[in-house]
């Protein structure tokens, strides 16, 4: 008997490392990551580099960008610094966007997981609830909730989460229905693993890729949602946000384009970054779907 020939086996790589490899090679995805990074950097580091209170009146109202050296992006209808508003406003917008997406994922994944795993009566009941929330026009429902209760950042995030979870629940459910019939799940059951264990430790990690993509897109959607609510004047009036800036600048639109164009561009670039990252993640997790 001879010893087996030694071959160099490439180090085993996890699926996440492989996905990152694909992600990294997509220029669109990297552009998205860059955009998102810049926006986050601006909102985090901005307040230290540019110390102007966004609510303070600093100059004549509606000063165009570039006219006054100390106020690079001009002022709004009250004479408040637009650049300071963009920096400060990004924080509220991103915070609401991320927390709303978190709430959406929490509700959606739990309901979808139970519906998909148990099937039958549990599934029927949970899906009826999901369908009910799906017929509510999201923005109108959020408008009602925010008006009846106080328009604090938490309530806004909650309202967005409550109207957005059905899609996540449906996606989670279909993933769970697919995975629960696979052999390794039966194997776990044969070993005596409990339902909770199988749901959260066995199926969920395997259902993660599409859920991560969906979570990314949910953040983008939540940011647009928050912007819409604050545009209508339904967000916390004491917190600067991009949507609020557009809402207040709207009346001066024809005399002062910059008041609405600049914060809108920020929202656009942020959500664009997020959706590019989402598309990149989608391609990275499903390489065979790339043609679409």
């Amino acid at each position: 008997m001879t010893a087996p020939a030694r071959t160099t086996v490439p180090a085993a790589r996890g699926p996440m490392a492989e996905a990152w490899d694909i992600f990294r090679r997509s220029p669109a995805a990297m552009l998205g990551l860059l955009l998102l990074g810049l926006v986050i950097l601006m909102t985090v580091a901005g307040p230290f580099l540019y110390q102007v209170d966004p609510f303070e009146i600093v100059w004549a109202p509606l000063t165009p960008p570039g006219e006054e050296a100390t106020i690079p992006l001009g002022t709004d209808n009250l004479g408040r610094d637009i650049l300071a508003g963009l920096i400060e406003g990004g924080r509220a917008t991103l915070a609401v966007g991320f927390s709303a997406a978190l709430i959406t994922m929490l509700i959606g994944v739990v309901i979808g997981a139970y519906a998909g795993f148990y099937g039958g009566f549990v599934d029927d009941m949970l899906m009826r609830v999901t369908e009910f929330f799906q017929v509510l026009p999201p923005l109108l429902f959020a408008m009602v909730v925010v008006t009846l209760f106080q328009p604090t950042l938490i309530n806004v995030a909650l309202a967005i989460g409550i109207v957005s979870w059905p899609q996540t629940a449906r996606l989670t459910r279909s993933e769970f229905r697919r995975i629960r019939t696979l052999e390794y799940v039966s194997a776990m059951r044969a070993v005596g693993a409990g339902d909770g264990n199988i749901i959260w430790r066995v199926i969920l990690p395997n259902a993660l890729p599409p859920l991560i993509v969906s979570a990314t897109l949910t953040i983008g959607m939540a940011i647009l949602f928050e912007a819409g609510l604050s545009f209508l004047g339904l967000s916390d009036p004491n917190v600067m946000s991009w949507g609020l800036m557009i809402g207040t600048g709207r009346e001066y639109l024809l005399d002062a384009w910059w008041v609405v164009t600049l914060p809108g561009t920020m929202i656009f670039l942020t959500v664009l970054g997020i959706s590019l990252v989402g598309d990149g993640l989608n391609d990275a997790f499903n390489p065979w779907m790339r043609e679409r």
Partner: protein
Amino acid sequence: MFKAILRQLLYVAALILAVLVLNFLLIQLAPGDPAEVIAGEMGGANAEVMAAIREQYGLDKPVLTQLALYLGRALQGDLGTSYFYNRPVAELILSRLGPTLLLVATALAFALIIGTRLGMLASRNPRGIASALVTVLSLVGYSAPVFWTGLMLVILFGATIPLFPIAGMIDVVKQGGPLGRALDIAHHLVLPALTLGLVYLAQYSRLTRAAMLEVLGADYIRTARAKGVSERQVFGRHAFRNALLPVVTVAGMQFGTIISGAVLVETVFSWPGLGTLAFQSILARDYPTVMGILFFSTLIVIIANLLTDFISRLLDPRLAGGR
């Protein structure tokens, strides 16, 4: 078949009931006196009106009795009174329904017709110009807030190239017969419908492209080609008809978000529909109107879902026999 329809109707009835219960719960859960919520904060309701509301809604009675009273009234079409507009809410909503439906239908038709064509064009060459256009369009359509796109169009067409009116539905100054009136409304409709339609145009073109690429790989397309069907026929009939199904399903499922988009677009262009009414009544804290609009738009979504179901069955005979 009859049984299926009956089941559908029961299901719809249950949904409507659930929406009403939700409305009732929201009023109960809101901080403060429910009578105040029903009257609306700035409705100018005096002590007399408040007493009448307490009496009418049975606010001194147990919660379940209140719920029964509320449901009974709502099912008779009584959605309460707007003390801000001093009119019954149902009447107020019906007077604003037309413009909203006109806006939504136009935007949807525009998005569906152009979007599916564009998607089909793009599917002919997955790496061609049309495909690139669809990709860019869908990214922009997804990422730009709809109200902002509207405001940008206002700047473009209000200040730079004044081609289309940027506010309202009818020019008061303009005279003319019914035709002149229709043309005037159509002229005002261009920008709001374009704004709302662009979002969905972007989605439907991407969806059509993906569906076409999937369908074109199917066996029956190969069969059609093998038996000598012209490429035009393969694309236009065999593939397109089948690719349309997911688009119609998504369009129907999205009706709620389309109405939400309409709220924002109407606010931007002062379009006199349900959206502006919702916005104004929220500013006025006119809760009965706001709740009424929520209920009514949910009804519209339910009806739209039923219609989508019906259209899907027409498009795909396999669905017709029930599942």
